[in-house]
């Protein structure tokens, strides 16, 4: 005998728990009244279940709504499903209220006729009753809306699986893709100005000047760098006889001189300088400055410039990243297409190896567009969804709540996976993958067809619909009655003439 505990509109969980504690029975039935919020929020039920389990008591939960409808009060023993509403008993009155009448009897032939007609009428009524009770049949199709119950489980996947592992499958493909981009770099291009300086050597030693020696000319506050365009040696100073203003011959220092061609370090008009604008003090050479000085012996000219678009380092990096994203997406699509539709490609297991990458232009190269053509070898691991379902069948079974079953149909259990951890060897090869498997089961309540047929027998369609609508998860009821057009106002009075069919609503 189960202990029945009623949970009404207002209840306190502590009281319910105390009732379970104090009950001597090992079976507890919780009867939840229709106005109670107990089943709306599963948190209360979770606590009660935890407690009942800790006391090793079996808990059964009943929604008493259907019993209340037929006049029962939750808390009474309603464990028998076949209870019906008590009907008022109408006792026949001992005294007939029909007034006595004097009958004027007809003649014998008419009397026989009347008797026969009366018997036929009785037989007709009886026949009609029998037919009305036994002939009409109805098929009631109930559309049930499934619920989703979800659970997660971690599994170990290996290419060579042990008993507790699932098989890890490897798949490979090669993707070649091209992508264009507009370069964003800029560069000054043009001609470099050339000219000539004359270098004076004030020392007693020859001065050697290498080609490419920097010559800085300051013009209007800006240092413009030129380079010597040839290798040269400027002779040391010499002592020569010269005649002074008095007509006397005296010894004097004569500096060594050498004209050297120079070229601007960069293209540009600003390097075109007139020798009239530049003094010796504006020019400095990147060698021993105490020993030498220089003059701009001929104006520099020929310098021109323009800005052109070139390929920058960043352009190539961005292009590579952008193409990689496309390749990753295409690789995933391709691998999904080449594995079975039940397979679960593991997101974290993708490995991309670039076989070739060709750019149409190099860094700093003038170009209006740059194209990258890349071939990538993609490897990924996947799991077989059906195998997981089979491996986790026990877990899936546990997911299905009491009084529910998995909805019929091919796709009513779905598994999805995500990689939790990847174990690799020293070379980075994947050894095993820890996968979190999310299982979703579409479940529908176990529906007692026989009980429903009993509950709705003899009811009008409207009343039958109302009765059915009280059952959880039933969305719709459709009635088909035979024979058509006869006895269609009410459902058959015999429960075994009502066929209940269950149809699962698609999610």
């Amino acid at each position, binding site marked *: 005998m189960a202990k029945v505990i009623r949970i009404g509109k207002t209840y*306190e969980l*502590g009281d319910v728990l105390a009732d379970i*504690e104090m009950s001597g029975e090992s079976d507890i039935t919780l009867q939840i009244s229709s106005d109670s919020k107990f089943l709306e929020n599963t948190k209360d039920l*979770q*606590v009660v279940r*935890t407690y009942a389990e*800790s006391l090793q008591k079996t808990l059964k939960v009943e929604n008493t709504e259907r019993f209340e409808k037929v006049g029962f009060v939750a808390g009474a023993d309603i464990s028998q499903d076949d209870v019906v509403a008590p009907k008022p008993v109408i006792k026949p009155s001992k005294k007939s209220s029909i007034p006595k009448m004097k009958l004027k009897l007809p003649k014998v032939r008419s009397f026989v006729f009347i008797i026969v007609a009366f018997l036929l009428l009785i037989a007709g009524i009886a026949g009609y009753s029998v037919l009305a009770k036994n002939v009409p049949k109805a098929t009631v199709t109930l559309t049930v809306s499934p619920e989703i119950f979800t659970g997660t489980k971690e599994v170990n996947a290996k290419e060579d699986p042990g008993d507790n592992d699932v098989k890890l499958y490897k798949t490979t493909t090669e993707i070649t893709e091209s992508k264009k981009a507009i370069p964003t770099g800029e560069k000054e291009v043009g001609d470099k100005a050339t000219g000539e300086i004359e270098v004076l050597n004030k020392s007693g030693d020859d001065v050697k000047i290498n080609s490419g020696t920097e010559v800085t000319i300051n013009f209007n506050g800006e240092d413009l760098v030129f380079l010597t365009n040839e290798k040269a040696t400027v002779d040391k100073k010499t002592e020569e006889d010269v005649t002074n203003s008095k007509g006397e011959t005296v010894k004097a220092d004569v500096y060594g001189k050498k004209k050297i061609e120079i070229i601007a370090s960069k293209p540009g008009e600003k390097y075109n300088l007139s020798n009239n604008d530049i003094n010796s003090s504006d020019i400095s050479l990147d060698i021993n400055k105490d020993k030498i000085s220089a003059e701009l012996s001929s104006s520099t000219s020929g310098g021109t410039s323009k800005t052109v678009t070139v390929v920058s380092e960043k352009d190539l990096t961005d292009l590579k*990243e952008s193409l990689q994203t496309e390749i990753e997406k295409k690789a995933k699509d391709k691998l999904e297409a080449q594995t079975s539709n039940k397979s679960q490609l593991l997101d974290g297991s993708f490995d991309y190896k670039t076989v070739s990458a060709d750019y149409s232009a190099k860094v700093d190269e003038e170009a209006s567009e740059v194209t990258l053509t890349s071939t990538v070898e993609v490897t990924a691991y996947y799991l077989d969804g059906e195998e997981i379902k089979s491996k986790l069948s026990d877990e899936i079974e546990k997911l299905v709540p009491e009084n529910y079953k998995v909805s019929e149909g091919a796709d009513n259990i779905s598994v999805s996976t995500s990689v939790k951890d990847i174990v690799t060897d020293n070379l980075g090869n994947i050894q095993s993958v820890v996968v979190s498997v999310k299982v979703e089961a579409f479940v529908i309540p176990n529906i007692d067809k026989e009980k429903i047929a009993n509950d709705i027998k003899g009811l009008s369609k409207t009343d039958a619909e109302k009765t059915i609508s009280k059952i959880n998860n039933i969305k719709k009821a459709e009635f088909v009655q035979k024979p058509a057009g006869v006895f269609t106002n009410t459902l058959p009075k015999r429960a075994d003439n009502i066929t209940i069919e269950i149809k699962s609503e698609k999610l």
Partner: protein
Amino acid sequence: MLKLPNLSKKSIQKAENTNSKSLDSLLAISLGSYHLGCVMGTVEEGKIQIIGHGQTTIDSDDMISNLDKEEILQKIIEIIEKAKSTSQYNTNKVIFGVPAKFLYSKTSTVRIKRKDPNKKITKDEVDEISKKIIQKAMQEVEEKSNNVGGLELLNSDTTFAKIDGYITKDLKGFRGSTVEISTFMSFVEKKTLDNILQMAKKLKLKIITVVPSIYTTNKLLSFQELNNYLLVNVGGKSTTTAVIFAGEINIISYFSLGYKSFVNYISKVAGVTESEVIEAIKENVINEKINQSKNKIVNLWADSFKNSLGFIDSIKVYPEQILVYGLGSNLIENTEISDKLSQLKFKDVPTVKSLKISDLTNIVDHTQSIKSTSLIDSIGLLNFGFKIINDG
């Protein structure tokens, strides 16, 4: 009227005569299925000054749906009047706290590749990312909850942000290619929010905001040195746990066991009156008869606590510091629950510590009468409310 030790008469006068923001007072009300708490406070010298409080119990499993009921409105008026009765301050500004039972909480983490890594991250860019996170989360929560009436965002907070793996609180001004943001959000059903707004309108209260109670309590603790912990509110009819990492809530979970369940259970099983149980708990004088049933219900609490954490998929290792507070916390305080939690992964042996009002360093209780931690949620709300006012 209670004397206010540190608030000068001049300050009070000023509060009455000026609109000085720093001297504004505020009411903070936490709404629970069994317990209603209200504190009234003001701010002086950067500290929250509690100048009044009131609390009461109600018996309504679905209190928030019944906010229009005369009985509940009367209870709210009572606690507000009680909170106002100990000072000369007067206000109709209020912040409301919603319990976890009515919330849908979610933490979303996104990783975004930036188009231009050399460009500094601006406020607009962060706002745009946050907007997308919230929209997506709301959609997911709506789908999961099968909610038909729609949801409203109550609060969102960045749990952590990274730029190219570098963790920062504020992404603005950084350059980099990959942004990672983890955001904690709480949603509430529109009808729940509507009920609170209607109730406030009837009582002529001016709402400054509605937030999850435990969220603001955690903000109150952000002044402390704690970083990773479980914050557990053993409330009137349920227990709420917030899992905190780096000072921010990562997830909120709750189960249906609280103070009222303890009292009713012990009373029935030990065969004593509820008043006797309440008195025994309050005075911590528990006889053998009460102790046996108390141990049983606390064992169930510990099992349910473990289960509520076990359902959280996203957390693998829990912080070992468990901070409990709330109406039923003193029953849990001295209970050894480490064994019960052994199936969960902790870095170290979990320890339970009961929060005390004295732990709240930024709070001054002028009433000197707040003894239990049942008002901590309301104090957290008050602190958060002033933060909103000061931030404009």
